[in-house]
């Protein structure tokens, strides 16, 4: 599945939601990182949303008792 490339406008919107002041220069600086990372992260999302792993709980849960 191909995804539309993330744009600088997308970065600006996300930064506003995150209350992170990002100048246009900073938006341009991190745009290539997001363009590289997000498709792979979305691919992992799709993998982890499949029925065969629906029951998989995250490793970030409280685990009382023995730690191993």
């Amino acid at each position, binding site marked *: 599945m191909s995804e539309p490339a993330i744009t600088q406008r997308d970065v600006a919107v996300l930064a506003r939601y995150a209350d992170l002041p990002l100048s246009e220069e900073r938006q341009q600086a*991190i745009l290539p*990182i997001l363009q590289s*990372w997000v498709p792979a*992260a979305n*691919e992992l999302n799709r*993998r982890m949303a499949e029925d065969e792993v629906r029951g998989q*709980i995250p490793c*970030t849960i409280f685990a009382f008792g023995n730690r*191993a």
Partner: protein
Amino acid sequence: MDLQELTLAQAAAAVKKKEVSPVDLVKACLGRIEAINDKTSAYISVFADQALKVAQASEAMMMAGHDMGALHGIPLSLKDNVSLKGQLTTAGSKVLADWHPDDDATVARRLRSAGAIFIGKCNMHEFAWGGTSDNPHYGAVRNPWDTSKFPAGSSGGSGVSVAARTCYGSIGTDTGGSIRLPSAVNGIVGIRPTYGRVSNHGIIPLAWSMDTAGPMTRTVEDCAIMFNAIAGHDHRDPASAQQPIDDYTSDLHLDLKGLRVGVVPGYFFSHLQPAVHDAVRAALTQLERLGAVVVDVPIANIEGNISAQLTVESVEPSTYHQKWLRERPDDYGEDVRALLETGELLLATHYVQAQRYRALLRQEFMEAFKRVDVFICPTLPFTATDVGAMTVVIEDGKEEDMLSAIMQFTGVPSLTGLPSLNVPCGFDQQGLPVGMQIIGKPFDERTLFRVGAQFEGATEFHKRAPQI
């Protein structure tokens, strides 16, 4: 006696026999630091006066029959994200350029209690968020084997401090590979412990769910000796494991007959520079000669580990740095600032799916450990590249992003919490070191040290020193 060429174990034994004074060890180390630090930027702080005073006291105690322990009189360095009471602790940053903690990190306190002498704090990738140790505030750390090359990171200064014989061991930290990577490219031993095995109290965090601390040394025995001093539960670290500790030196002499070594086909030996491929393959052959059995063990979901690592390793630091990033963004180096800004913009679903993936991957490895005792792979797919490089060529002349490339193999233990040990296993045609990564079961560091020690005993890679 060439004090610089003694291992930690040999130096410690010589101190106990009163053949060598801690003062002489410290003086030798300080001399080496003076000789190489301008060329390598390995140290941010050097405690010359204090270390000599402590060494004098250490000598007096030993002469009076008071032996503090396994590390009595041994000069060590610490990565500069490890708090040392009253000493400058910068985490390689401008943000903490004037910070003097009011207490030791637990690892530091335990090393002191075992008699160690701290000689200085080592340069590193800023806030440990990177794999090159190209530090914009304290200088780019340089590889002692070739100072035009990088030492990897983020514990690059620690790796150089050990390889260049300025100390007998160092404490590094490892989130995504930051002990193992500099150990590999500096030709030394370094261990990422089982998550929770060594306290993180008093260490500036990078990613809480993946952070560990561990020793970096010239030999496996030295690493095991230091590990004995620092492993164990710490009530001040909420993630600290209650699992009883072992004597990590107890199995170093045991042979490898019947030991089962797992290799993940289609991943562990794919996408490597030829020198790395050949060196680690030869290492597996050597282990077979020692009696080990090498077994292919597929891991169904190993692909995807790099994305998961990038997500977790960027989101968690971004939350730690939220306030500083808004109040003083210009105090960060460009690469770390960009990564912290990026981590703020990944989605919550990305983060939780990555955490679910970690649990799945861990289950697959735990199932695989019913068939093998350890896994072995290269620590990273390339040898040391140029200082300042943001890309690397691994095969087919194609340039790849450094960060993603460097974590090709170190991500598995980072994501799963498993322990892993880097051991030197060769050199490329330019004389740059190659390292192999031995991955073990939870809390089975003893077996990692056994495999590493037996391999070391049959080879000489660890004996070679950089000519700096």
